């Protein structure tokens, strides 16, 4: 009952926010994106213990694929260079077709990319996996900077949003909301069953999991591909929200998005369902406050905050709660020592 009330309340707030704060629509759209970042990272890094600094690659790939599809669907490249700056370049129909088709295609393509990459690097463990994925991000940025077809180092300008449709911020607020909620529900559904315990087992002791006959490779690939799927669709939308794709600073932004997604998940409590959501909200809001009130020092403040998170909250907020009040999470000793006694107690209750 209480959950239903909270759910209804949450839904109402989520839908009301862009109407109540029209000036902050972009900010709230970004908040949903941050939540999605933290959730997709947590599936790999938190639940499965595979600390990936390469998840942002899927974000960038999705961004590029969507932008290219939007462009090539209605223009050839030569022509696009001239029309890109024009407000009325695309009709609303063309725009919607392009962006959603692009996001769908990038979702499918990045799942395949994840499966192929995963076949190679998901065999690495611990630090080796982290370093390898870090290299992957850097390599992706450099490679994208070298391909003329996608604008090389100068990037791509995404099509101008047709404002006769609705306010741009409003549109992207709902796009990111749907994506983030979809990610949350998918995570929740997947983790509630065998998959959840299998990836947790891989996190706790992968050798043991293998020795017990668990098909670890299958679970690892599934987690990686799921992350990739949502990240790439988010990337497709994000490219349009930003309006401009730069290979190193926007698409394959390992130093910002790539690190933030890790921090947000850690801050909230990695390996928990709600931790990444809480962490993303706190991180994003604090970060925006730094920009507003500590302008000029915002990077320093952000850096200090990152150090603070890692030093004082290595377990995150949810992890902190679980450590100090384990009985709230059901970790307690029973008085009953046999199944029979336990059954009697339950029937009395």
């Amino acid at each position: 009952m209480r959950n239903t009330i909270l759910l209804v309340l949450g839904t109402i707030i989520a839908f009301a926010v862009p109407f109540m704060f029209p000036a902050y629509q972009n900010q709230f759209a970004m908040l949903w994106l941050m939540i999605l970042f933290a959730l997709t990272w947590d599936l790999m890094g938190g639940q499965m213990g595979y600390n990936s600094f390469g998840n942002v690659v899927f974000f960038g790939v999705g961004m590029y694929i969507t932008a290219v599809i939007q462009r090539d669907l209605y223009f050839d490249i030569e022509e696009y260079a001239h029309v890109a700056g024009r407000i009325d370049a695309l009709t609303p129909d063309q725009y919607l077709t392009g962006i959603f088709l692009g996001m769908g295609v990038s979702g499918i393509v990045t799942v395949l990319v994840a499966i192929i990459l995963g076949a190679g690097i998901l065999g690495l463990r611990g630090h080796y996996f982290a370093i390898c994925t870090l290299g992957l991000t850097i390599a992706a940025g450099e490679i994208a900077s070298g391909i003329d077809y996608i604008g090389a180092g100068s990037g791509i300008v995404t099509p101008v949003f047709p404002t006769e449709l609705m306010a741009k911020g409003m549109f992207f607020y709902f796009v990111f909301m749907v994506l983030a909620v979809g990610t949350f529900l998918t995570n929740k559904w997947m983790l509630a069953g065998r998959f959840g315990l299998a990836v947790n087992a891989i996190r706790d002791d992968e050798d043991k999991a293998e020795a017990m006959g668990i098909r670890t490779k299958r679970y690892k690939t599934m987690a990686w591909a799921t992350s990739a799927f949502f990240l790439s669709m988010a990337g497709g939308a994000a490219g349009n929200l930003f309006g401009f794709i730069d290979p190193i600073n926007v698409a394959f932004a390992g130093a910002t998005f790539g690190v933030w997604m890790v921090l947000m998940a850690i801050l909230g409590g990695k390996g928990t369902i709600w931790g990444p959501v809480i962490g993303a909200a706190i991180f994003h809001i604090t970060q925006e406050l730094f920009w507003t009130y500590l302008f000029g020092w915002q990077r320093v403040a952000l850096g200090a905050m990152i150090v603070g998170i890692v030093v004082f909250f290595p377990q995150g907020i949810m992890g902190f709660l679980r450590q100090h009040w384990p009985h709230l999470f059901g970790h307690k000793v029973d008085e009953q020592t046999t199944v029979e006694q336990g059954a009697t107690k339950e029937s009395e209750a």
Partner: protein
Amino acid sequence: MSMLQVSGASKRFGGVIANEKISLEVPEGKIIGLIGPNGSGKTTLFNSIVGYHPLDDGSIRFEGQEISHLRVPEIARLGMLRTFQQTRIYGKMTCVQNMQISKPNRNEGLMSMFDRFPKEDLARIDHLLEFVGLYSKRNLLAGDLSFGQQKLPEFAMALMNEPKLLLLDEPTAGINPTLINGLIDRLKRANEEMGITLLVIEHNMRVIMNLAEHIYCLAHGEMLAEGKPEEIQNDQRVIDAYLGAH
């Protein structure tokens, strides 16, 4: 025919000969012991059997099927499971969760990745945890149990997996004498009541002499002696090996 048949198994690590032409047999339904001084190659042999590293020479057959080329999870799914010398459990999961994920993975399709856990599982888990004496602590994180106690969920997880043959690497190491007695009793019951064949590495002579029907003794990577517990106990070569006469 024996359930497990190792013949002429050899394994070298660089110049170190860990196993040299080892042959042993584990008949179905028995409890077989494997002893030997530290560094005699017992764990290496275990690792070869369950597929951690390939053999240099020789063959390993499980229920008549050659398995020396298979990898660890594949062998585990055939029904041959091992426990570790250094206890390994999933520390940040509760004992019940440890058990839930340990159910057999033999005929698992792609979609069974998302299976839920049926009620029958829970009943079986409760009984197995009661069997090893952990029922009251079933909702604790397995990693919060004491080191000695962690052997119990590991054993229960192995039983949950319904193996045909269970390889135990020093099941009583680091456990107090009272708990050891309970564990011997449970190992015997697992063998008798659940029909699980056991191959046990053990340093504690009292334990292995009580438990095993047939014992193999390794020394310096070679098979030194084999026989009934009494024969092994009185074998001069075995005594010498343990006292360091070599």
